[in-house]
């Protein structure tokens, strides 16, 4: 990590916190089952780590034709701490929490 020394006497923090990969804290890995996802973005809304972002509509399969034009969501596992709020709030239970050691790599 590069430490930036301040040019003026007031110390100003300039390194974005995205350098901290907080994903290492995770015990449970949330996995989105896209065949159930209704694109309501409630998981995005409530994520305390801002670790859920939008992806193009065609990035993942959609359960219904009518939903195919809406963006999908993806979890950034570099920062997700695995709190599980998304899984708890998901209205259609499309997010599953898998124990990290159990190899939650793929769906």
């Amino acid at each position, binding site marked *: 990590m590069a430490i930036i020394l301040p040019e003026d006497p007031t110390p100003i923090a300039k390194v974005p916190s995205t350098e901290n990969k*907080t994903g290492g804290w995770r015990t449970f890995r949330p996995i989105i089952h896209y065949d159930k996802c209704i694109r309501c973005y409630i998981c995005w809304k*409530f994520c305390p780590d801002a670790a859920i972002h939008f992806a193009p509509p065609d990035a993942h399969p959609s359960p219904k034709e009518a939903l195919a034009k809406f*963006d999908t969501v993806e979890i950034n596992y570099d920062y997700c701490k695995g709190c599980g709020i998304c899984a708890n709030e998901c209205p259609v239970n499309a997010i599953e929490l898998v124990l990290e050691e159990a190899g939650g790599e793929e769906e």
Partner: protein
Amino acid sequence: MHRLTIPEEEYMLSGHTACLGCGATIAMRYVLKALGKRTILSIPACCWAVIPGVYPHRNLEVPLLYTAFEVTGAAISGIREALDVMGKEDVNVVGFAGDGGTADIGLQALSAAAERGHNVFYIMYDNEAYMNTGIQRSGSTPMGAWTTTTPGGKKRMYKWEPKKSVAEIMVAHNIPYVATATIAYPEDMISKLRRAKEMKGPKFIQILSPCPTGWRYPPDKTVEVSRLAVQTNVFPLYEVVNGKYRITIKPKNPKPVKDYLMMQGRFRHLTEEEIARIQKHIDENWKALLKKERCSQED
């Protein structure tokens, strides 16, 4: 294409050092989404003083000035006046303090800033104890709660004094805008912040932000606990615009307070009689609030 109910812009970065399922970070996300990029924050000692990480890390896309515990009100007053002199009147100045820094330690600075009438926001994110230093009791801790300084045991020394209502204290300062909000209702919170943004003068918003570590519940229940606090009338959502009360979310059939209490380990010790006592206290508060709304809306 996506349809969203809250602004998409993100001013809080990932990679912060908050606990799993932290309610205060969700509160900050919404506050910055509502107020936008032209905002200056001032934060005293509280959880948010450690969440952005150690120097040289920054976590927010807006300027942030750390202050001592008791001077948030004074700091935001100074920033406001300096900005006004520089002609930057469109910048929002926000004090973002915890409940200890608002209800106990920072009350005099807040009261003075409100009395002087600076055009600032003061946001109290209420996690109902000094969570940053290890769950010590604050004036905002609710009745019956366990904390590390009000432990249990045979003498049942839990905190039995009722929660201090900082929102009511601020209403008594006759400031233009006072509101309560919680993270389970982001649209409500953001509309309140936007309304406050259009007003001149001190604006105070109290945000209930559940804390999984201190309230002793699993981290995935943060939003659920916050929602239950409203649905059981434990934390009513209302706004006071120039002295006129308006309850923004009225639960049709309020749930029993027991549902809210039993979700949290800090209330696990409560007996049936004690729960009934808390229920009575909550009902009285709710009735008083309804009365205030009715009385202030007349004439």
